[in-house]
């Protein structure tokens, strides 16, 4: 997959798909059985419970955030960033390895205009749906089954972006 970037006039702008980055490929996990992924589902379950219990998945909480009527979401995102930042600092400082003993790698993101145009577009959509992609899954689980339509539409949006990516400013 290392050749992937060279095939496209636009370079990699999506640093979340790390298997495309040869440096980050985690060799031992590639050969691991599918069941080795269950631990990620467990973390997802805990994450989903927090989402619902703290009402982060509530459309009304997102409206209150953008209407500056509540500190709740600012507190959630802000304290999550602080805890994430301290954790990453500790991992880097003490060169902590994964449980399997591998070196933890970080990918530097490079700036492109998509972060502005795409960011604005996601922001507009976020205030409509009251959900970023994570809460969409949790809302469906919590019983708002019509949100399946929103999720399918989000998948369609991702597909259309991929289809017309070369024509968009980056």
């Amino acid at each position, binding site marked *: 997959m290392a050749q992937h970037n060279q095939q496209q006039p636009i370079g990699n702008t999506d640093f979340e798909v790390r298997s495309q980055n040869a440096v980050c490929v985690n060799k031992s996990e590639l050969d691991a059985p599918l069941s080795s992924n269950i631990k990620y589902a467990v973390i997802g379950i805990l994450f989903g419970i927090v989402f619902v219990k703290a009402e982060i998945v509530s459309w009304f909480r997102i409206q209150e955030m953008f209407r500056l009527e509540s500190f709740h979401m600012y507190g959630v995102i802000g304290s999550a960033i602080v805890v994430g930042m301290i954790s990453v600092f500790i991992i880097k400082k003490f060169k902590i390895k994964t449980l399997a003993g591998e070196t933890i790698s970080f990918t530097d993101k490079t700036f492109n205009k998509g*972060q502005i145009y795409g960011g604005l577009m996601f922001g507009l959509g976020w205030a409509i749906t009251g959900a970023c*992609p994570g809460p969409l899954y949790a809302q469906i689980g919590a019983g708002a089954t019509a949100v399946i339509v929103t999720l399918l539409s989000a998948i369609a949006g991702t597909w259309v972006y991929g289809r017309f990516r070369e024509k968009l400013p980056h």
Partner: protein
Amino acid sequence: MLEFITKPWPWYVAGPLIGLTVPALLLIGNKSFGISSSLRHMCAACIPAKIPFFQYDWKKEVWNLFFVFGVLVGGIIAAQLLANPEPIVIHPDLAADMAKYNITDTSHIVPSDLFSWPALATPRGIIMMVVGGFMVGFGTRYAGGCTSGHAIMGISTLQWPSLVATCCFMIGGFIMTHLILPYILAL
């Protein structure tokens, strides 16, 4: 203890727990926190259609699909077993403004007047669910991440492009809430 679990959790409990997802994913498998890429993996797995952007080995990223499946199951557990018996308390100004648009059911996580199967037959319901979802999917991938990948993981690792993206998320949200949404809700 049970009462503490069933009541809505305050931000200073939820935020740090969400922040701990960053080291948890790094430590158990050198994985970078980011949820919106799951949408790309689903495209790559189901409808790649020879589009270069979807030509990669999504199976190497399957952990991400397990993770979001977990989030969905977590939603089921929280709603079925840990549900708050009290109705959701929302800001009185928000409730008053929503009532102007005939959005009176504030007892669920999403307003059923906008997000429900019957609402799909209304113009504003279609815009909220279909157009809103499309913008979330298109925008997050164009930006290369969402609240988790950019705001939390990106800023945690001191990536300034993620800070730019996060500011744009917020600007877009303020524009929609204050300048555009009132017109959509009035439909």
